[in-house]
C-alpha cells in the first residue's frame, strides 16, 4: 500500500479539480438548470474522492463521503427529490468535504464534530424515504446479526461449518476469521457444474482448475457426457462438469475463493471427505445431502473420464470464439477511425503535465539569479564602447532579450486564470442574497485573466469579504431601492483586467454608496481621526480600511465576523497589491484592487541616500521633484510640509528614518519623491538622488530575519550589492510614531552608535 502513497499528490490535485467542477454543477442544480447528468456528475465527483481517499487511508474523509454519496445516489435515482433545501444541504456538505480534503492534504486534524451536523442532516434526509445512510448503523446491524449467528452456532456446532451451511457467503467476511485458524490437511470433494453464463462472462474453468491445483494434492475428473455432436455445439455452451479431489491445509474457504467470481454461474458443492474428529458430527450433518448426490454424479463421471480430458473443453469453450476474433478484428478494421482516436487520446493526456510547485519555484528563483547575473555583466561592461566590441554589445542585448522571454515564460507557468476564485462568488452572492432578503445579481468579466498562483490562493478571502461587504452594506433592500427609484435587483459586478504590469480587480455595486457622514462620525468616535480634521471625500471613504473600523450598527453575521476591511487591506498588501474604494453616494461603490502579476520580480526605482542605495517599488511613486524653497512649509511641531498644487504633503527624510550618515538635509538640494499609500494619502520622501529604474528580483528577508519596519524585502543589484526594498507604509509609521525630526536624530542615532 505504501507503494501507492506516491500518488497522493495526484489525488489531491484531482480532488481540487473535482471540487472545482462540483461547485459549478451544484450552482446549476441550485438555479434549477441542473438535470440528471448534473446529478450524475456530482455523484461521480464524490465517488472519485471517496475512492482515492480510501486508497490512502483517509478514513474520516471516506466515512463522510460515503454518506454523502449514498444521499446523492438516492437523488440521481429519483428517489430523493432535489428540493431547494436538499440542494442547499448538498452545497453545505460539499464545503465540509472540501474541508476534509484540505485537512487530509495538510495533515491537520479538524475538530471532531466538524462534519457532525452535515452528516446528521444527510442521514435524516435519507431517513425520510426509509434509507439508512449511516454505515455505522449498518455495521451495528451486521454485528448484531453476527452475534446472533455465533450464538446459534454455539449451541450445536463449531463456528467452522457455518460458512458451509450458507451457500453464498460474502467472500470477504468469513475469509478473515478463517485465515488465522490453523486448518489441518483435509481432503475435499468439489463438484463443479458450470452454466452457460460462466463462459459468457469470459470466465474459464481451466484457470480455476489451475488455481485449485495450487492448493495442494489434486485429482480432476471431467464429465463430458453432455457434449453434443460437433454440429450442435454452441460456442458458449457449458457441456462439461467436473469433480475434483483437493487435499489442502488451507481450509474450505480457500477453495471457495477460487470460485469467487463464478459462484452464481455454476453449481458448486464442497464436501470434506475426512472431517477432523471434533468437527465431524456437525460437518457430516451439514454435508448429508452431498454424499447422496455424490454417487449419482460419480457414476457417469468415472466411466468416460481420464486425466487428460480436462484439456477437452478448451477447444469447445474457450478456443471457439477465438477464430471469430480474427474475423472480428478485421470487422472493426472499419474502426480505423476509432484507431485514430486512440493516439488522439494519448496526445490529449500529454498536453499538460503535473509539476510540483516547488520545482517551478526553483526555476523562477534560478531565472531571478540569471537576471541578476546579467545585470552584473552588463554593469561590468558598461565602460566598454559598443563600437569597439560590437559582438559583445549585440550578445548582451540579445541575452537580455532572451532572459526577459525566459522570465515571462517561467512566470506564465505559475499563472492561473482568476476563474478559480471567481467561480465561488455566484454561490456566495446567492447565499448572501437569501440571508439578507435582497435581490442581487452578480456579473463577472475577465475571468480568464491570469495571475500568479500564490496570489490566486490568497485572493479568495479578501474577495469574499469585499463581496460580503457589498451585499450587506452596499446593496439596499428591494423596498429601499424602489424608494430610491432603482430596480429592485441590485447588481454587483466583478471584473479582472490586466493593466500595465498589474492586475486590476474591481468589485462594483450599485447600492447606496458610503455614508460619509456616518463614517466620519464613527471615525471620530473611535478616535481614528481628530474631531476637527478636514478630509477629502476620498479620504473619508478610505477610512473604512483603518483597523478597528466598522460602521455596521449591529454586527450582522455576514460582514461582522470579526474581520474588518483592515484585514482585507493587509492581505492585499502582503501580496504586493493595493486596494482602495471609490464611492458615489446613492449610486454605489467600487473596491479597486491592484495586484502584481508576479511576486518574484518587482519594478523598482533605485535611490541613493547617503552611502546607501534603496529600491522603491515603482507602483508607489507618483512623481519626483526638486522643490523651490517657498514650497516648503514648517508647521508648529517642526514637521515639514511640501505645498504642491494646493495640496500639503508631509516630508519624510529617508536618511533620518534609516540613520544613514551624510544624507542631504537641504530640501532644495535633495530630491523629493511623492509616494502614494494604500489609503490614498501621500508622503514626500526626501532622498539624495535617483539612480534609475530597474527590475529587481525579490529576495524574502522573512526566512532569515524578523520583520523590519520600513523594509519589505531585499534584492541584489547588478554590482553584487544587497539593496533593501522599501515599504512605504512602514516608513510612514516610523515617521509618525518614532519621529524623524532633526532634533530627534541624535536621540535615535545614539543607541546605534
Amino acid at each position, binding site marked *: 500500500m505504501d507503494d501507492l502513497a*506516491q500518488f497522493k499528490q495526484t489525488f489531491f490535485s484531482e480532488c481540487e479539480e473535482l471540487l472545482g467542477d462540483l461547485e459549478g454543477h451544484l450552482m446549476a442544480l441550485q438555479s434549477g438548470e441542473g438535470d440528471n447528468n448534473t446529478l450524475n456528475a456530482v455523484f461521480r465527483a464524490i465517488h472519485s474522492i471517496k475512492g482515492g481517499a480510501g486508497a*490512502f*487511508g483517509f478514513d474520516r474523509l471516506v466515512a463522510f463521503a460515503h454518506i454523502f454519496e449514498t444521499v446523492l445516489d438516492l437523488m440521481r435515482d429519483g428517489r430523493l427529490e432535489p428540493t431547494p433545501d436538499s440542494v442547499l444541504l448538498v452545497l453545505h456538505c460539499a464545503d465540509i468535504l472540501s474541508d476534509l480534503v484540505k485537512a487530509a492534504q495538510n495533515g491537520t486534524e479538524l475538530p471532531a464534530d466538524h462534519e457532525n451536523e452535515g452528516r446528521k442532516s444527510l442521514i435524516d434526509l435519507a431517513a425520510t424515504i426509509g434509507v439508512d445512510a449511516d454505515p455505522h448503523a449498518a455495521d451495528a446491524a451486521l454485528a448484531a446479526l453476527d452475534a446472533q449467528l455465533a450464538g446459534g452456532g454455539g449451541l450445536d456446532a463449531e463456528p467452522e461449518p457455518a460458512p458451509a451451511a450458507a451457500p453464498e457467503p460474502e467472500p470477504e467476511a468469513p475469509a478473515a476469521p478463517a485465515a488465522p485458524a490453523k486448518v489441518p490437511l483435509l481432503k475435499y470433494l468439489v463438484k463443479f457444474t458450470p452454466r452457460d453464463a460462466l463462459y459468457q*462472462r*469470459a470466465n474459464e474453468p481451466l*484457470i480455476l482448475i489451475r488455481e485449485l491445483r495450487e492448493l495442494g494434492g489434486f485429482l480432476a475428473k471431467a464429465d463430458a457426457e453432455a457434449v453434443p455432436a460437433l454440429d450442435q455445439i454452441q460456442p458458449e455452451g457449458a457441456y462439461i462438469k467436473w469433480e475434483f479431489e483437493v487435499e489442502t491445509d488451507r481450509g474450505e474457504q480457500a477453495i471457495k475463493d477460487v470460485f469467487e*467470481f463464478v459462484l452464481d454461474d455454476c453449481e458448486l458443492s464442497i464436501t470434506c471427505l475426512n472431517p477432523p474428529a471434533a468437527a465431524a458430527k456437525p460437518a457430516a450433518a451439514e454435508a448429508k445431502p452431498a454424499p447422496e448426490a455424490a454417487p449419482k454424479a460419480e457414476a457417469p463421471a468415472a466411466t468416460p473420464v481420464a486425466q487428460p480430458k480436462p484439456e477437452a473443453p478448451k477447444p469447445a469453450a474457450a478456443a471457439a*470464439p*477465438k477464430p471469430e476474433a480474427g474475423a472480428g478484428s478485421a470487422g472493426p478494421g472499419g474502426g480505423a477511425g476509432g484507431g485514430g482516436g486512440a493516439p488522439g487520446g494519448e496526445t490529449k493526456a500529454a498536453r499538460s503535465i503535473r509539476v510540483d510547485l516547488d520545482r517551478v519555484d526553483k526555476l523562477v528563483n534560478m531565472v531571478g539569479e540569471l537576471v541578476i547575473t546579467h545585470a552584473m555583466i552588463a554593469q561590468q561592461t558598461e565602460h566598454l564602447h559598443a563600437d569597439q566590441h560590437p559582438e559583445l554589445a549585440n550578445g548582451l542585448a540579445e541575452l537580455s532579450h532572451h532572459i526577459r522571454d525566459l522570465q515571462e515564460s517561467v512566470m506564465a507557468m505559475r499563472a492561473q486564470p482568476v476563474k478559480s476564485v471567481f467561480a465561488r462568488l455566484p454561490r456566495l452572492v446567492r447565499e448572501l442574497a437569501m440571508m439578507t432578503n435582497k435581490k442581487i445579481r452578480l456579473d463577472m468579466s475577465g475571468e480568464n485573466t491570469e495571475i500568479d498562483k500564490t496570489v490566486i490562493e490568497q485572493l479568495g478571502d479578501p474577495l469574499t469579504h469585499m463581496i460580503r461587504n457589498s451585499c450587506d452594506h452596499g446593496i439596499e433592500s428591494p423596498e429601499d431601492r424602489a424608494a430610491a427609484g432603482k430596480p429592485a435587483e441590485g447588481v454587483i459586478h466583478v471584473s479582472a483586467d490586466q493593466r500595465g504590469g498589474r492586475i486590476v480587480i474591481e468589485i462594483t455595486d450599485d447600492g447606496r454608496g458610503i455614508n460619509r457622514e456616518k463614517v466620519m462620525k464613527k471615525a471620530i468616535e473611535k478616535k481614528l481621526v481628530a474631531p476637527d480634521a478636514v478630509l477629502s471625500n476620498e479620504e473619508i471613504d478610505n477610512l473604512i480600511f483603518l483597523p478597528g473600523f466598522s460602521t455596521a450598527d449591529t454586527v450582522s453575521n455576514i460582514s461582522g465576523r470579526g474581520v474588518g476591511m483592515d484585514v482585507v487591506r493587509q492581505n492585499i498588501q502582503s501580496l504586493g497589491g493595493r486596494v482602495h474604494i471609490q464611492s458615489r453616494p446613492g449610486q454605489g461603490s467600487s473596491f479597486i484592487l491592484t495586484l502584481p502579476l508576479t511576486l518574484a520580480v518587482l519594478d523598482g526605482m533605485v535611490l541613493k541616500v547617503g552611502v546607501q542605495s534603496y529600491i522603491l517599488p515603482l507602483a508607489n511613486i507618483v512623481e519626483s521633484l526638486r522643490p523651490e524653497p517657498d514650497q516648503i512649509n514648517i508647521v508648529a511641531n517642526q514637521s515639514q510640509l511640501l505645498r504642491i498644487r494646493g495640496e500639503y504633503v508631509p516630508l519624510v527624510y529617508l536618511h533620518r528614518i534609516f540613520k544613514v550618515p551624510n544624507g542631504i538635509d537641504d530640501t532644495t538640494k535633495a530630491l523629493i519623491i511623492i509616494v502614494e499609500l494604500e489609503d490614498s494619502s501621500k508622503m514626500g520622501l526626501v532622498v539624495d538622488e535617483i539612480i534609475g529604474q530597474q527590475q529587481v528580483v525579490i529576495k524574502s528577508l522573512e526566512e532569515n530575519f524578523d520583520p523590519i519596519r520600513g523594509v519589505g524585502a531585499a534584492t541584489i543589484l547588478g554590482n553584487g550589492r544587497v539593496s533593501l526594498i522599501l515599504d512605504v507604509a512602514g516608513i510612514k509609521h516610523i515617521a509618525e510614531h518614532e519621529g524623524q525630526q532633526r532634533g530627534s536624530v541624535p536621540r535615535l542615532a545614539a543607541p546605534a552608535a
Partner: protein
Amino acid sequence: MTKRVLTVDDSKTMLQMLQFALKQGGFEVIQGENGQEGLDLLDANTVDVIITDINMPVMDGITFIKELRKKPKNKATPVLILTTESSQSKKEEGRSAGATGWIVKPFDPGKLLEVIRKVSP
C-alpha cells in the same frame, strides 16, 4: 509475451495507481478515461484483460461492458470491474452486463495481480 491490460477510469489517480501496480506485475498498460475511450482503444488494440470503473462520464462502465461484449473479438476477454463498495448490487449489475469479476477499491498491488491471475490464462 507481455500481456496487455486496458484500464478505464475517469480518475487519473486511479489510472496511475493501476498502472503502477500492473507494471510491477509485468503488464503493459493502456488507459482510457471513459467507456467510449475504452471501446475506441479496444478497436485499435488487442488486450488480455480489461479493468474498468463503473461510474464514469460519457459512457459508464456497465454500458462499456455490454458494448464490448457485443463484439466477437472481446467475448473471451476477462473484464474486471472496480468497485468501492463490496455491495452485492453493484457486483450483480456488473456481472449481468458481462463482467468476469471484480476488484474492490482500495486495492493493494499484490491483491490486484492475484485477482488478474484468477481470470487470465
